């Protein structure tokens, strides 16, 4: 990225000035090194988003931001409830894609003797990869119940424990879902995909805590050095993808109908208060519930696989966060509370201490922010900060972010060799697709530690613990 277009406010804060037609500035949080790696398209997309009606305060880019479609990935933008817009592209294709992390109640020593068996057991038990199907088939009526109920529905079906729900954003169930506004095609795509991991950067990882940066918060989250955790990265599967496809198309026409000037088709949006805007929000919330239910079923499958080999294991959910959402939240704008639709696309909500939406256990310390790694590199647990509200409407980064295209990665790595190399470092990778492994090579991503350090230094969230992979089931 050409940084000469930016004004540097501090070591980790850079501003793109609000020049017409932008209504607000763009604010990027990153080190200079991360900024230089960022695509120039990020700036172009931030300027486009900043020009949409009803936008408030600023368009934000997290340290892992990169070129998306319409909105940058790692982008945050909030719109006023009365005269703002909602954009399917501002949420992304994998609605409510996210991460949940569980504590196994075990230490590295406990799993060392059966690591290979555990990897195989998880790989056999958790459907992963292209075309894989789950054991659950949802008929239309049950599909609608799932889309209303989210993880709460899954727990009622026996896929989890009631106490899981308080450790999930929205307590596992997004209000305001409208399953009747989700197309038949979207529901068909999902009929056999409940409890499947997906492909690409989705994974189930067994990890060890290797470092704790903040003992007080780590204690509140229940993690300590040597603990074994499980992280699941997955989303709303085919249903969410089809909702995004259906409504992106509708929004192209809606934007035209409402006279919204779009710099690009990919910015397609609709006024929040329009029929089209409300329909998308209802369908998107149903897709959020689909993602929450899916991660809940995947959790149940992980618990079953652990119970078979390690009856002592007790997989307790630490927290579940979503990355691709548009949520109605109250934020302080120029000192006054305002209801806003906050788009977080490849960004994590990061409420600071005291926020009423947080579970009791975390209210004093802030929200866990779970940052996914890349199969061969670390993952992190961070915590929301009090200053995050003013800095980024309580938002933080979501992962490493790609640095290299799939095509380039495929030229540079071979899947089988990569699996062998990671094995030599003590990381067991199981995947149905060697090509998928090569495309997802850790080297194709940005340095996750640099991303996390930037989020920490910028005050978006603070580092709590570092996790290293032991076993990775790749989709």
């Amino acid at each position, binding site marked *: 990225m050409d940084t000469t277009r930016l004004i540097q406010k501090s070591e980790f804060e850079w501003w793109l000035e609000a020049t017409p037609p932008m209504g607000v500035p763009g604010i990027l949080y990153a080190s200079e090194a991360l900024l230089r790696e960022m695509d120039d398209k990020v700036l172009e997309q931030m300027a486009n988003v900043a020009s949409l009606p009803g936008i408030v305060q600023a368009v934000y880019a997290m340290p892992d931001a990169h070129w*998306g*479609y*319409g909105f940058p990935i790692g982008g945050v933008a909030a719109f006023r409830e009365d005269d703002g817009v909602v954009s399917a592209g501002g949420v992304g294709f994998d609605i409510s894609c996210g991460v949940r992390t569980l504590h196994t109640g075990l230490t590295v020593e406990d799993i060392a003797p059966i690591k290979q068996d555990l990897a195989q057991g998880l790989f056999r038990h958790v459907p992963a990869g*292209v075309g894989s199907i789950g054991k659950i088939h949802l008929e239309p009526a049950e599909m609608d119940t799932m889309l209303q109920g989210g993880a709460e529905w899954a727990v009622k079906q026996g896929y989890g424990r009631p106490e899981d729900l308080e450790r999930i954003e929205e307590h596992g169930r997004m209000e305001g879902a409208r399953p009747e506004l989700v197309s038949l095609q979207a529901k068909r795509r999902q009929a056999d995909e409940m409890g499947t991991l997906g*492909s690409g950067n989705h994974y189930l990882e067994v990890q060890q805590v290797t470092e704790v940066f903040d003992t007080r918060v780590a204690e509140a989250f229940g993690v300590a050095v040597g603990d074994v955790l499980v992280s699941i990265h997955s989303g709303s599967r085919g249903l969410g*993808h089809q909702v995004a496809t259906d409504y992106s198309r509708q929004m192209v026409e809606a934007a035209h109908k409402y006279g919204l000037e779009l710099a690009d088709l990919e910015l397609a949006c609709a006024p929040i208060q329009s029929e089209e805007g409300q329909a998308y929000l209802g369908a998107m919330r149903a897709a959020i519930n689909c993602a929450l239910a899916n991660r809940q079923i995947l959790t149940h499958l992980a618990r079953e696989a652990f119970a078979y080999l390690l009856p002592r294991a007790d997989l307790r959910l630490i927290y579940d966060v979503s990355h691709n959402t548009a949520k109605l939240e109250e934020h302080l704008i120029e000192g006054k509370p305002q209801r806003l639709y906050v788009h977080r696309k490849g960004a994590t909500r990061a409420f600071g201490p005291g926020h009423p939406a947080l579970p009791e256990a975390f209210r004093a310390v802030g929200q866990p922010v779970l940052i996914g790694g890349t199969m061969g590199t670390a993952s992190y647990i961070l915590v929301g900060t009090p200053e995050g509200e003013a800095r980024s409407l309580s938002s933080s980064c979501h992962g490493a972010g790609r640095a290299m295209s799939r095509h380039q990665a495929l030229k540079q790595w071979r899947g089988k060799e990569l699996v062998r190399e990671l094995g030599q470092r003590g990381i067991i990778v199981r995947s149905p697709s060697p*090509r998928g492994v090569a495309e997802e090579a850790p080297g194709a991503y940005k340095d996750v530690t640099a991303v996390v350090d930037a989020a920490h230094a910028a005050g978006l969230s603070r580092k709590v613990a570092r996790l290293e992979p032991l076993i990775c089931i790749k989709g």
Partner: protein
Amino acid sequence: MTTQLGRWEHFHHQADIGVRGIGPTLDKAFEQAALALTAVITDPARVRPIQAVEIECEAPRISLLLVDWLNRLIYEMATRRMIFAQFEVHLSPPDLGGALSLHALAWGEPVDPLRHQPAVEVKGATYSELEVKQDPQGHWVVQCVVDV
């Protein structure tokens, strides 16, 4: 090299992947874009065209029709758990309401994880880098980014 049937290619995108079809006619360019889509998932040469699926769609603009075409293929792949390697596309001129329509056959087979080694699911075709144009040689070039 451009043949009578055209050719396909992928173009750079940091996180996702661009698919491009090039052909002497729009029909052929659309067919090649579909092949480029398959190549995101697997090597098209590994796919046997043994079963046909019929696809019809319409849109007010040719560029939107390209996105709809690719999205229909993504839908058919997802719900039938198939992968396609051969395409026959017929585009029709605008009807009285101004809509362009597409009628196509896509040949392929059910996904076989061992033989196809599919790398990634395509979530959807986007309007990013969406273009339908003729190059100086008169060949049709159609492209967009697909989200993976």
